């Protein structure tokens, strides 16, 4: 039995669309997901488990239509879906009574329900969010059921699989130890965007594509296989782009142009299609004139952090200028009562104001 475990696709999210290069990012997420469906069909995967937040917001009818078309295409692969906190089934939700394709199973109950698939001998458990927040630990009280609806015993080697969404205090807190003891053969977790294993049988696939700039690292889904030797899972790195943190070390010998080149080089090294959070650190020249805004035009840059410091420290600068205006300014700031963050800013502004406007004599 083969399955894909996908979660937090967030269709409809449009991260970075404030940048010109990010305009198509929303569409890209759709395409990425359709790619997974195509792969599933190609690899004759039995199940695709979607552990919540397939949509970023309440899905529109036409969006469901589009996605259902792609689901239909990937038959006979069965697609099992639960709704997460982002696409929860509200009173007006289009999920309600949606005529899904025959190979799609939407587990829309608010409490845990199950589906038994005799052909694959798999029993799938799951529930859907009907509210944005759920504080109760709904997964703490469930476990596999060994009989079918009529009370007949299920085959001994039936696989019991739970689709679960949540894991923080406002979105179904999960007691992982309890859940592990409940005895499911696999728990396909969703909600946390960073992929990680809780145990060999219980893992977060993470978001298929990074949804905001805090979703660093690789993204994709989990591919599972049950053969005679048991369950094998591996993580498939799938996202079209990643958020990459770049740290560029600056020296006081570097001009602003040289620093920009350094950033360019680092971006090319990491792959230009990625999205970058650039941190400038090290020592900058006293006379370095720059605008961090320039960095944004070098590529897919989402953030620039300027942690560059001057070669001198304020104490020694003060010592060298004790008698003059700059020295008096530094002393005043150092003596003032303010938090260090503010003090650094004030010193920077003051230094620039007094130093940059000075006349050379």
């Amino acid at each position, binding site marked *: 039995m083969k399955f894909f475990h996908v979660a937090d696709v967030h269709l*409809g999210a*449009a991260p970075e669309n404030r940048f010109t290069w990010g305009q198509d990012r929303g569409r890209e997420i759709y395409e990425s997901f359709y790619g997974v469906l195509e792969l599933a069909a190609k690899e004759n995967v039995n199940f695709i488990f979607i552990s919540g937040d397939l949509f970023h*917001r*309440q*899905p*529109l*009818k*036409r969006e469901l239509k589009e996605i259902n078309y792609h689901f239909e295409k990937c038959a006979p692969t069965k697609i099992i879906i639960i709704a997460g906190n982002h696409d929860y089934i*509200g*009173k*007006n939700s*289009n999920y309600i009574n949606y005529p899904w394709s025959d190979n799609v199973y939407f587990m829309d109950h608010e409490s845990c329900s199950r589906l038994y698939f005799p052909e694959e001998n798999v029993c799938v458990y799951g529930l859907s969010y009907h509210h944005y927040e759920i504080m109760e630990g709904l997964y703490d009280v469930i476990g596999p059921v060994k009989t079918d609806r009529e009370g007949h015993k299920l085959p001994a080697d039936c696989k019991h699989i739970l689709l679960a969404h949540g894991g923080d205090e406002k979105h179904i807190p999960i007691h992982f130890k309890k859940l592990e003891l409940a005895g499911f053969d696999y728990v396909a977790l969703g909600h946390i965007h960073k992929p990680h294993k809780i145990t060999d049988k219980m893992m977060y696939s993470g978001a298929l594509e990074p949804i905001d700039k805090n979703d660093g690292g690789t993204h994709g889904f989990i591919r599972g296989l049950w053969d005679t030797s048991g369950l094998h899972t591996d993580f498939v790195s799938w996202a079209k782009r990643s958020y990459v943190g770049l740290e560029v070390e600056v020296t006081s010998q570097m001009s602003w142009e040289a620093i920009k080149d350094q950033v360019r080089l680092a971006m090319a090294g990491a792959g230009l299609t990625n999205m970058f959070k650039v941190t400038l650190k090290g020592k900058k020249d006293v006379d370095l004139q720059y605008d961090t805004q320039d960095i944004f035009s070098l590529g897919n840059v989402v953030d620039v952090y300027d942690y560059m410091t001057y070669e001198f420290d304020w104490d020694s600068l003060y010592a*060298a*200028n004790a*008698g*003059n*205006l*700059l020295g*008096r*300014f530094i002393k*005043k*700031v150092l003596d*003032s009562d*303010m938090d260090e963050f*503010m003090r650094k*800013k*004030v010193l*920077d*502004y*003051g230094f*620039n*104001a*007094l*130093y*940059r*406007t*000075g*006349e*050379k*004599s």
Partner: protein
Amino acid sequence: MIIKQLQLTHFGKFHDFALDLQPGVNIIYGLNESGKSTIHEFIKCMFFGARRLRGRAAASDMYNRFCPWEGGKGYEGTLIFEHEGKEYRIYRNFEKGSVHLTNITEGQALSLEHGVISDFLPWFTEENYNNTVSVGQKISGVDTGFALSLQSHIANMGRTGSENIHLGKALEYLKNERKKVSAKVSVKQYQEDQTRMETLMEGRISEDELILSKTKWEQELTGKRKSLSEVCENKEMLIGEEGRLNEQVRHLAEQIQQLKLQMDALSEERNNESQKKEHEKKHKGFSLPLMFMIIGVLLALAGILGFSYLPVEMIYGILAVAVLGIIVGVIMLIIGGKTAGNKGDRVSKSVTEPVSLEMLNQQMTQALYDYEALKNHLMQTTAKKQQLSQLQAQLEKSLDEIKKNLEKVIWQQEKQTEIMNAMEVLSERMEETKEHARMVKEDLAAIDFTKQIIEQLSEDIHRDFGRYLNQYVERFMGNITGESRRFSVSGDLKVSVDNEKNFVDMNRLSAGTIDQLYLAIRMCAAKVLHGNISVPLIFDDAFTWYDEIRLQALLVWLKENVKGQVILLTCHAREATVLESLGCAFNYMEI
């Protein structure tokens, strides 16, 4: 520095006009409108250029003020000055905006990066020139910004570094930074988002209302669908009934037709029979078997009657013949009947089952009655069917309407979802803007704090410098007025005076005294700024408000305290007279 020669090639009203100046005191005398102020401005223009403005402002800019009436051609001049033992020449062509500085002594061309003399002599800035060197006709006050320059200068005096820090420029820089940082938050975007949010809110319909109307229409749809299917079912039944009735009617019509035929046939037969009877009456009248039977019976009767009279043999003979007769008759009847039966199968049963015309008539009447009844029933059924058809059409129409309404509700629902989603996007963006604004606010706070500290710094410097300034002004004013008064100079170089009760603003004093106070500050500033460097002092009708005593006192003060060049532009003869009376040497020129 000593200005040695002015050559006004074409400048204002002057053409090819030259003026030689000496170290020490120079008096340039001229009547009103003789061009004294033009010469004063010429010196400034030579050092710092003639500012040329665009548009409407061009009418009053420096360039146009002194542009020769004949046009810009030859609009130029030369100024020769001596500084630290070397002679320099500034040549300017105002029309082209070009300037050349030459070290004449060493025959070396020097460049002026910004076209001003301070590129060569950094301390000789336009600001310093305006506030110390040049004393104009009416305004003897100093620029507000100059106060900060002076403070910066004073603060910088004790410095070892190579940079001169300027408080005024620092504050200017901060002001610009503030502008830049504020521009980072798009207030407009936020406001637009807010307006859009409000519009979206207005377009919202309550979820419950939508669900209610959706349920209502769905229920109606189900109801109508149910009645429609009932109607259709009934209609189907009626159609079946109608078919059956039609069949029955057809069948009955056929029967009637046949009855009619039978009746026709029977009446024809009757006709034939009566003819036959008449024929039989004419011929035999009796049928042969009957005759045999009758004879048999008669013989039997005769035998029985004649039992007593006739001999037994005779009787037996008669009876035997009678029985024979009867048997033959019966046999003949049977045979005849059989033949007739076969014949009747082909023609009509009336032969085997002889029916009367009356019976047929009766049957016909019944059939016709039934036919009428059936016809009636059929008509009723058809009418009912038509009624149902109409009902069906009505139901279908209202069903369509309900479907439309339901579709509309579904469309509204979809729109609502879209609105909710758009609102979510907007609120996210607004949150982001707010977060951004919070960061910008922090930066702005830092800038404001920096500004505050620099202003404090300026006050601190003034506190140190203020006493010196006060003393200088008091000494200067004591010299000029012969009175000892207490003065206080503020951080922005405003002077107040002690009137024995408190310090009052200097504007309470006479115009002459105010002029003198300003001069005191200028002289002090010049001393502070230029120190040991001797800089020319130019007075352009600056002593108009001075009385004879104070003028004399001032000139004495100048003679004793100012070592450098002094240029007095005046329309009065009194300066020369006073200087002569003091026994001071001076260079006198008239224009």
